[in-house]
Each structure stands twice: as C-alpha cells, then as structure tokens.
C-alpha cells in the first residue's frame, strides 16, 4: 500500500513535473529523435533517414560559415569581455568619488534588454550620421557601412556583445573582490609586495573560482545570445554575421526545415557540452576554492 505522504509528495511536485516534462524534457528528447528523421511535408510523411541529416549538414557551406563565425565570435568576445570586466571591477573596487554612480553605469548594459541594446547600436553604426561615422567625420574620416560590409559586420556584432556582457561579469568580480579580506593586501604591503605582485600572486588566484564561473557563462552566452543579430543584420551580409543559433532559428522558423534545425541543435548541444566538460575538468582542477 502506498503511504499517504508519498501520494502527497507526488501531488506537490506534479505541477512542476508536468511543466518540466512538457516544455523541457520531452522537447529535448524529440529534438534528438527528429534529427534522425526527415522533415514531414504535406505530401510526404516523416521517415527515418539515419545520419543523412548530419551528412547534409557536413556539406552545408552556410553551416560551416556560421560555425567559423561563431568560433571567431567566441574567441574574440569571451576574453575581451572577461578582461574588461575584471579591469572595471578593479577600478570600481577602489575608493573614488561617485563610485556607486560608476558602478551603476557599468551595469546599465546588463539591465537593458538585448533588443533595446541592438537598436541603440544600430544607430551608432548607421552610415554617415550614426555616432561612429559622425565622430570620425570630425577627423576627416570617410563613410562606413559598418553593418553592410562583410569585413566589419561581425566585428561590429562582437563590440555590441562585449559592451553588453562586460558589465554583467563585472558584478561577479566585484562581489569576489569585496569578499577578499583587506588584511591580505595590508600584509602584502608590509612585506614589500608591489600592487602588481599582489595582483598576480594573490588577487588573480583567489578570483579563479569567479573566473571559471564567468568563463562558463561567457561561453554559453557566446553561442546562445543572438538577439542583436536578429535586430541588426539578420545574419547578413552574405552570412557574415550568421551565428549557429541564428542559423537554427532560420532553419526552423523561416525555412521550416525542422529536422535540419533539430540536427543543428544536437550539434550545438554536443559542442557546448564538450566545452563545459573541458572547462570544469581541465581548468576546474587548478582552481582554488576556499
């Protein structure tokens, strides 16, 4: 006989269970399954195709373009935003006038929705009368179509991402810095340690748990946040700013090729999983947790 409490327990977790299964677990499972089937069309029902979808993806030039774009995008934005975040946190951790104001200013990009951010930057990048061209024209600069040129479009998206991310990561670094006992710095001062020596030998190692956390988030965001692509370039020009997740969206909801979208999703998940495993497995061992 099932005990009363057991039934009650199940009843209590039922709402959460239903929601999780319906919107998380079941879609995840069907996504993996769908990647081995063809896309159902009006005349042709869905059928099992094995790894045909993966083979098609391998031969898809746009996929490879999006893949490399995303790789460069990650390699540029992650270190830039993390280093900038650390620098900003160190700057606002010292006693300076108007410190709360500066902290808030750094954090503002994080509070803005990415759609709003993208629209602001759309104006900054506008040829001729946008902020950048306007400032450059004062120094005799020429006209730039920042988002229209394949050479500058992806770097322009990277700048937006770094601007958006750095303030968010700064908060974590700032919290970690504030949790560091001030007498460590004092002890180092007494022992003749320069500011750089203290930073290198003490601050940086003690920030490693934060850095690992920030890095994991930065990697995920580099593959996850594509809102600005939707607003600013729609992957163009000529797929110069097409990123993997945006390509999944295009595949799934513009071309309605749901099987290929599912295949892409699985590939992206495997990539992210491998990266997370690498970060925690290799990097995590060298992190000192207090």
């Amino acid at each position: 006989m099932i005990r009363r409490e057991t039934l009650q327990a199940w009843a209590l977790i039922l709402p959460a269970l239903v929601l999780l299964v319906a919107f998380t677990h079941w879609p995840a499972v069907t996504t993996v399954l769908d990647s081995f089937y063809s896309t159902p069309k009006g005349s042709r029902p869905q059928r099992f195709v094995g790894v045909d979808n993966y083979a098609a993806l391998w031969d898809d030039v746009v996929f490879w373009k999006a893949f490399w774009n995303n790789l460069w995008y990650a390699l540029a934005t992650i270190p830039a935003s993390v280093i900038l975040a650390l620098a900003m946190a160190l700057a606002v951790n010292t006693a300076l006038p108007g410190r709360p104001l500066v902290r808030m200013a750094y954090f503002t990009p994080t509070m803005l929705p990415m759609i709003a951010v993208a629209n602001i930057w759309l104006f900054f990048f506008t040829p001729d009368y946008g902020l950048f061209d306007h400032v450059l024209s004062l120094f005799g600069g020429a006209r730039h179509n920042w988002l229209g040129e394949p050479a500058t479009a992806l770097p322009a998206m990277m700048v937006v991402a770094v601007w958006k991310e750095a303030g968010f990561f700064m908060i974590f670094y700032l919290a970690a810095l504030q949790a560091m006992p001030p007498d460590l710095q004092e002890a180092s001062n007494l022992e003749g340690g320069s500011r750089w020596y203290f930073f290198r030998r003490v601050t940086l190692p003690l920030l490693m748990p934060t850095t690992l956390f920030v890095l994991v988030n930065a990697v995920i965001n580099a593959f996850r946040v594509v809102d600005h692509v939707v607003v600013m370039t729609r992957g163009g020009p000529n797929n110069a700013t097409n990123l993997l997740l945006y390509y999944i969206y295009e595949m799934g909801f513009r071309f309605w090729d749901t099987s290929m979208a599912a295949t892409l999703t699985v590939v992206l998940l495997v990539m992210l999983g491998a990266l997370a495993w690498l970060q925690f497995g290799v990097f995590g061992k060298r992190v000192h947790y207090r």
Partner: protein
Amino acid sequence: MMADMHDQRGEVRLTGVTRSWGETTALAGVSLTVRAGTFCVLLGPSGCGKTTCLRIVAGLDQANGGRVEIGGRDVTALPPAARGVAMVFQSYALFPHLSVAENIIFGLKARSVAPTERAKRLDRAVEILGIGHLLTRRPGQLSGGQQQRVALGRAIVAEASVCLMDEPLSNLDAQLRAEMRREILALQRRLGMTMLYVTHDQTEAMGMADQVVLLRAGRIEQDAPPAEMYAKPATSFVASFIGTPPMNLLALDGDRIRGTDFVVPGAGGLLGIRPEALRVSDAGLPARVISAEYLGADTVVACMVGDGRVLARLPGKVDLPAGAAIHLSHNRADLHLFDATSGLARPMQL
C-alpha cells in the same frame, strides 16, 4: 659599540601622535618610547585606540599629527614596506591558496631575496617553530595554533628589528593561548626583536611585557613595567583594569567609607584595595557576604561594604554562606587613594 648600534635599530618612539575620523578621536596625542629588544604591550578596552596606534607604527594608517620614529629614523611618511617592521595580524592574514612555505617566504619573493637565502631563512624559521611537517599544506588545512605559527614564521623570515602583533591570540582557545604566550615570549627573547603587542587581556600583558602601555579613549593612562602598574596604579582606571579580579574601589564620605563608620587615612575620593590584600578576621572592615565563587586555588568572595561591592580573594576553599556578617582586614600599605573627579592616584595621609 656593536651592541649600541643594534639597540638603536629597533627602538620605536611615538611623539604626540593623533588620529581621528571625523568626530571620533582614536588617538589624542600619544607619546611613548619602546626600547630596542623589549616587549611592549599596548593594553586597553576595545575602542581605546591601541590597534590604531599599532597600525600607525606599521604605516597601515596615517597619523593626523605627531611623529613616528623607528630606529631613530623618522618613518611618519614612509610606506609600510620601508619601515623595517613585521606584523602578525589578528586574522593571521595568510594567503589561502598558497602553501605554508609559500606563505612564509611571500615577502622574501616580493623583495627578490635570492633563492638560497630564502631557503636558509625558511629552514631557520621552520626549525624555530617546529612546523616542518606542514610546509606543503594550505592554511585551510591547519588548526588555529598552526596558522598562528605560520603567521609568526612570516614575521621571523622578514628579519625585521621590530615585530608588531595585533591581538594574535584572540582566536585561540584558553589552553593554546597560554602555550602560545610562552612561545611568543621565548621567540622574542631569542631573536632579540622589539615587540609591540596589542591586547585587551591584562593577563597577557602582565605575563609577557617588559613595558605595559595602558590606553583609554586615545590617551595613555599609564606607561610602566607590569609590576609597577600592579603595585602603583597611576589612576583609578588602571586600578580597575589590572588584576584578576581587579582592584576594589570604594567611594569615601570624608574620611569614612561611604555607608560605614570605617575611618581610613585620607579624605574624599576613592579608596582602592586589591582583592588579594583582604583577609577574613575578627576585626576590620565590616562586610556582608553576597556570594562565594570557589576557583580551586582560591575563593573569590563578593561582599557588601557599606554601599559598595567588594571582592576578596581568599586562599583555599572558604565556606561563607550568603548573608553572613564578616570582617575584612588588610595592611595599611595595601590601600590606594584616588581623586574622585580626575581619577589620579593621591598620596595617603599616613
């Protein structure tokens, strides 16, 4: 001649040092001299300015006024690293991610001391402190007493002539505290460094110091060797701070203890007498017992004398029921007289 030069090196002298934060005054003109190679304890209740005083000597805080000299050199404006002092923090301030060995030689690496010299100094410190088996551990894997030793190790390898300690034993349990007290004192004697030691525990001060500086509200109440501070407290505050339990202070009405007909030599102010100077006898100060606390070697009896409360420390186990009427006798030489308003010690009218 060599000895003189060495003596000069570790002398610490403060002249009119003041420090305030806005309205609050931490130090109101502190002047003191600590001779080289001596053990000086800065003693006082919390908030008396003793830690501020130590931090100003270290250079971690800047004085608003006055001079700090170390080894005859004016260091008032120098950064901490240039002052030639080592410091043991209350929290030990060990770097949690570095091994014990790395913690100890942290400063030597910062100052680019040659590796062979580093190893030599580390070996010596490790041998003195007996922590050879801990060198590869991290501070988090050590007990409080072991962490304390590592912090001491860092001070030893610096080979500074002056060592500053900020309540170094406050995080240890009572038994370990007594052990470390002896160890620190032995260390100071062996290395011959000048020690400036901050504590609020008067037993530490009495047991370790060559010189005790008792601070109260940013001012020096008395600067004297422990025995003198015990025997001749300069103020009623010193009297009520030193001793276990501290000196009894009774208000006087004219030449009588308030609420009694007991006549004392001296009029007005406060009469002081140490608990251990009182004995139970047939005649003397009439008292009524409130309670008796048996401590093993002796019993501390609390009584009412007139309107005032008096503690008497009597040897052995003394059975006195609450409410019992007794008489407490004493020697005249054990009486102290203090001014009622200024608190300063006054000579007895013998």
